[in-house]
């Protein structure tokens, strides 16, 4: 029974449900692969979905279209499960694509809001970018392996051409970059915070965004034979985790800070995969889902009780006395996220950072420092959120504060997740041990454990604690307006949306317009219909001139 609540090892099972398509020697099945990898992901998927559904019942209780909302959330759970337990890439892609579709639908749930529609469209299109590469990968697999199931891949991959494997790894990496919001294709996740909070909590923190990481871990047999791609992954992860941390420190939108934090945690997972510690990446996914969902739910609980439902942290403050329960849950989630020893996050996150150093490679060292920086930043922005919302002076009007209240129905699922965020980490080896058995054997775990000086183990914690204390001190005593261009740069999310719009979207639209104007309705008309019409019309005139010239 406890198997539903947390992961316990069982024999892997492969269940064949039927055939999707048989063509030539290609056999694509609907099948379930229940191994320790998929089942350990199923735990957060199932539990967080359950909690979020309970939470949403209260959160969305007054929405006229709430049935549609619950239905879509449930459909999401279905396709997420499909993604996780699939036994081949095709079925996985079905899940993959549909979680994108459902994410579009859920983000555009409040469809009268133009910003919501826009952000949904942006999410859809950036995800489609990743899907394009996933489709390419599917095509390459079908072409070169004549199979799509993981078992065959695992057997075949070591014997394939390295270029081919590199190629497929690139494509999967781009796909994961889009889905897991890594640098370059991350813009959608930040605007996704327009959606209702349960959606952000379930899709954009706990489950859907993790699917990119999951797919990469599923494809470890490809990645393991493409060391150069692992290094690319390391750098991608390192840059993303640092940049997102920097952006989060100066962002004012509460949910956006959390989204950036999700991004940074996902890139931590990328980093762990980069040093071949796939089981650690999965373990962080497993743990991260709970405390990140809880963080969003606490934020939602706050926003729900504040009348204007604003997401701007500068409008909050002093809520500790008004929302003690949400404060507790959020504190627990934040501390877990900061990797405070004793809480879940510590056992998953710290291990990953250590193994970066423990890989004893040049990139590993560099990444260790990047990850440490990011962990420090995590501590800082988490505490900043806490400070601005709970400790700071109240910044809203009195009437609003009079209405602030806890909600029992929302508190219950939050309690469950709080328990997870606190105690989940104690059973780490139960999860990682068997997963690691089926994955490449790296010594990094052992080496990290026995060779690393304790300084490197404790550095993130020390830095995080001391700097976040400093942050509180600065907020309390030496607060002043900051007007540096750097602040603007990071606060505006590195102007990445603008870059994307001005360098990619707009030129494409302009090109389309030119094509429409000058080619389709210009050149092709002149050479085609209009030209022919004129030619035929003026032909007699020309002939007449010709004749006249002849006789003159």
């Amino acid at each position: 029974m406890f198997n539903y609540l947390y992961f316990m090892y069982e024999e892997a099972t492969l269940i064949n449900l039927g055939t999707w398509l048989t063509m030539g020697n290609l056999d694509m099945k609907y099948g379930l692969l229940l191994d320790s990898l998929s089942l350990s992901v199923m735990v957060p998927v199932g539990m967080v979905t359950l909690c979020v559904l309970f939470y949403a019942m209260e959160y969305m209780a007054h929405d006229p279209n709430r049935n549609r909302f619950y239905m879509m959330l449930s459909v999401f759970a279905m396709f997420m499960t499909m993604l996780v337990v699939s036994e081949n890439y095709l079925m996985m892609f079905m899940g993959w694509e549909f979680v994108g579709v459902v994410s579009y639908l859920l983000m555009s749930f409040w469809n009268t809001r133009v910003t919501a529609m826009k952000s949904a469209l942006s999410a859809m299109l950036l995800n489609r970018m990743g899907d394009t590469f996933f489709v390419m990968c599917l095509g390459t697999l079908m072409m070169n392996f004549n199979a799509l199931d993981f078992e065959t891949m695992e057997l075949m991959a070591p014997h394939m051409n390295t270029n081919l494997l590199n190629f497929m790894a690139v494509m999967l990496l781009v796909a994961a970059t889009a889905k897991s919001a890594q640098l370059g294709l991350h813009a959608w996740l930040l605007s996704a915070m327009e959606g209702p909070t349960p959606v952000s909590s379930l899709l954009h923190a706990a489950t859907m965004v993790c699917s990119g990481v999951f797919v990469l871990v599923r494809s470890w047999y490809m990645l393991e034979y493409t060391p150069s791609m692992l290094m690319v992954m390391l750098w991608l992860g390192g840059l993303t985790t640092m940049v997102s941390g920097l952006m989060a420190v100066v962002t004012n939108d509460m949910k956006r800070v959390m989204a950036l934090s999700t991004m940074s945690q996902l890139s931590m997972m990328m980093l762990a995969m980069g040093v071949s510690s796939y089981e650690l990446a999965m373990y962080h996914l497993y743990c991260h889902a709970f405390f990140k969902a809880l963080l969003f739910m606490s934020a939602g609980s706050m926003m729900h009780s504040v009348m204007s439902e604003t997401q701007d942290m500068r409008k909050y403050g002093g809520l500790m006395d008004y929302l003690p329960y949400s404060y507790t849950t959020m504190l627990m989630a934040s501390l877990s996220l900061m990797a405070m020893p004793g809480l879940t996050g510590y056992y998953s996150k710290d291990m990953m950072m250590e193994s970066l150093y423990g890989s004893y490679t040049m990139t590993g060292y560099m990444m260790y420092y990047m990850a440490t920086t990011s962990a420090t930043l995590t501590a800082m922005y988490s505490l900043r959120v806490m400070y601005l919302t709970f400790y700071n002076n109240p910044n809203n009007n009195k009437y609003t504060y009079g209405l602030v209240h806890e909600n029992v129905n929302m508190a219950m699922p939050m309690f469950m997740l709080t328990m997870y965020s606190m105690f989940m980490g104690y059973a780490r080896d139960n999860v990682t041990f068997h997963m690691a058995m089926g994955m490449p054997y790296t010594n990094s775990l052992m080496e990290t454990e026995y060779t690393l000086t304790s300084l490197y183990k404790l550095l993130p914690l020390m830095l995080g604690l001391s700097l976040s204390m400093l942050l509180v001190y600065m907020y309390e005593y030496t607060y002043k307006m900051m007007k540096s261009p750097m602040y603007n740069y990071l606060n505006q999310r590195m102007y990445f949306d603008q870059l994307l719009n001005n360098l990619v979207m707009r030129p494409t639209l302009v090109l389309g317009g030119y094509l429409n104007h000058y080619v389709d309705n210009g050149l092709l008309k002149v050479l085609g219909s209009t030209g022919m019409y004129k030619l035929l019309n003026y032909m007699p005139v020309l002939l007449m001139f010709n004749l006249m010239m002849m006789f003159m």
Partner: protein
Amino acid sequence: MTLTLLSVSTMTSMMSRMMKNKYKEMMLVSSMLMMMPTLYEWQEVDTYFRTDGMADMLMLLTVYLVPLSMMSNWNNMKDMLYYELMLNLGMMLMMNFMCQDMTSFYMYFEASLAPLFMMMGLYGAANRDKAADYMLMYTLFSSLFMLLAMALYEVMLDNTDYEATSMMFLSMELQSMLFMAMFMGMAVKTPLSPVHTWLPVVHSESPLAGSMLLAGVMLKLAMYAMMRLMMPTLTLATLLYTPMMYMLCMMTMMYTSMMTLRQTDLKVMVAYSSMSHMAVCMLGMFSNSMTGLTGSLVLSMAHGFVSPGLFMMVGGMLYDRYHNRLLHYYQGLMTYMPYLSVYFMMLSFCNVGTPLSMNFMGELLSMTGTMDRAPLLGMLASFSVLLSACYQMKLTNRLTGGMKTPYLHLTSDVTYRETFLLLSLMMPTMYLGFFPNWSMDFLWSLTNLMYTMY
């Protein structure tokens, strides 16, 4: 067969003239009866008209779409001639898929233009004369080259039968010549990039049933002709010209997708989108692999369901209610037409090739085939996944989201008739997306089209 179908059509016309109040129903029933030839294995009775799986698939599509397109115009067309033209157009297309020699193919190919021309000229929108002329001129002119090729067959081989010509091994020069000539006709019909200008005009002006059949079936005629007239007989030329074809298809795909982003006319957008999808079909068709060929045919079929659905949506349901096709007027349909919006979203997601729809399977397999043949171009072709989402989701997003504008009055949501029509297009798409093996059973003879060297 021609006579049989023609006599059915004549009988229907005469009878509906006798019973004036029941003419629509009679036409409808008779259009449904057209499926009879597909029910029989003509090969067994040694009839000259015969089919195989590939043709059967497209024939089924035709007989499925003709009644539906009649029903789609059920309320806004009150002219018997219109339905007669529809019926006859369906029949021409039907015979086009059934005939077994190039001469008859050409005959029916041209003959099917006549009802469409009349339909467009009589019942089209404001610019109907222009559109009708465009269609006729472009297609007729280009298929003249096809006729020349067929004449050449007749002169050289004294035969234009599909099977007989495919037995012959023609010289490379002759094959190239024939290929180019045939290709002229096909490129306009598909339509590929430089010669596609007729399609958006025609689609925007034609009455609903016309665009449905045009997008749903007539564009597939080009696919079918590639498969029947060119690939078995002109094998070497097909292989030789594949790079050219691939470039053209890629151009078409990219070019139309980008242009669609800037269109404002809803029907034109759907028309351009069908062009880019047909280009993907064509890529699969020329891949010379099982995957590509299957994908191409499946995508043809899927597009034959989804594209008419979209046309029905924008050209029928929205147009009947608001009498305009401009994107800018529409906004926030979700708030007061939820069912319509849901159907529209479903169709849109099918059109962009979301898994568990038939389009996905077709697209995936076409692209795999393309990648097999030309890896780099195949990669580029995969960007149609992104591009199609760009224009289609932009359209859907625009239509469904936002507040109701003051320029739109409130109207009723989809009626039962419209629900029936949409569901009957959605259901095969979804069903075959879930269990595509059924459509595989049709296509067992596809491998004959592949050119393999041992």
